[in-house]
């Protein structure tokens, strides 16, 4: 786990060592963009921009999705945040359910005690 994390960090820092790639991340933080958009904005060739995006993608900082002939780039981390937020929401729902279930379990336990023996159907 630690090893994995550091490998990931190394990849991330390498990805961030370039001024164009930092600019791409900043751009994607504002809005998703295609590789063509990014190439235009940073005045470079499509091939050059593809290479930069590839480095960012391998570091997990950017995700890309091909729709038809257009490859759209998104900030990878934002999606992770979304998933973390969703899982926490889901956890809260189940925690609330299970807290109520505690009450039911306590009640059934008391009923068994009152009955003096196991309640069986």
């Amino acid at each position, binding site marked *: *786990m630690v090893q*994995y*994390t550091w490998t*990931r*960090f190394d990849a*991330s820092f390498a990805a*961030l060592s370039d*001024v164009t790639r*930092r600019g791409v*991340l*900043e751009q994607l*933080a504002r809005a998703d963009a295609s590789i063509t958009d990014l190439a235009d904005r940073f005045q470079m060739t499509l091939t050059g921009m593809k290479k930069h995006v590839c480095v960012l993608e391998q570091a*997990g*900082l950017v*995700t890309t999705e091909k729709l038809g002939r257009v490859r759209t780039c998104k900030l990878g*981390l934002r*999606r*992770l*945040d*979304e*998933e*973390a*937020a*969703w*899982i926490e929401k*889901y*956890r*809260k*729902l*189940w*925690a*609330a*359910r*299970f*807290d*109520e*279930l*505690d*009450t*039911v*379990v*306590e009640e*059934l*336990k008391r009923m*068994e005690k009152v009955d003096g023996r*196991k309640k069986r159907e």
Partner: protein
Amino acid sequence: MDARRESEPTPMKNRTTVERKSERELVVTRTFNGPARIVFEAWTKPELFRRWWVPKSMGMVLRSCEMDVRVGGTYRLAFEPDGVAFFGTYLEVTPPSRLVWTNEESGEGGPVTTVTFEEIGGQTLLVMHELYPSKEALDAAGTGAADATVETFAQLDELLLALGANLGVLT
């Protein structure tokens, strides 16, 4: 009120954990302070199930709760006021240790839910496992896609903070 509290002490709440175990699986874990047969009963008798499955914080009211708990039997939970429903079929019913059912309200993309009840020293360890037909179905159930596991989020969040700070300085 105080007298009631004394006679019915509220025990410490046990922790509920959720983990995205793989691209297609979510696992929820919780311990209950009671034997498995009681916890199982609360999952399989509709009059008990409906008391906890819709907590007040969900802001919804159950109109009906029908559960035919046997292999091949079906369940249906309908909400007020518009009758939104959850329904499916029981695939396995093994009292008091295991329940498996389908979730069919969202068509093909619904998960298969497996709940196991393991009794340990008078307590019950409950593990609820939801297996989706595909990564896309699980993503659709919650959020956008992500490859990392929950454990890496904290580190990546820190990185994002650092990144945000750097970008702020650089521009």
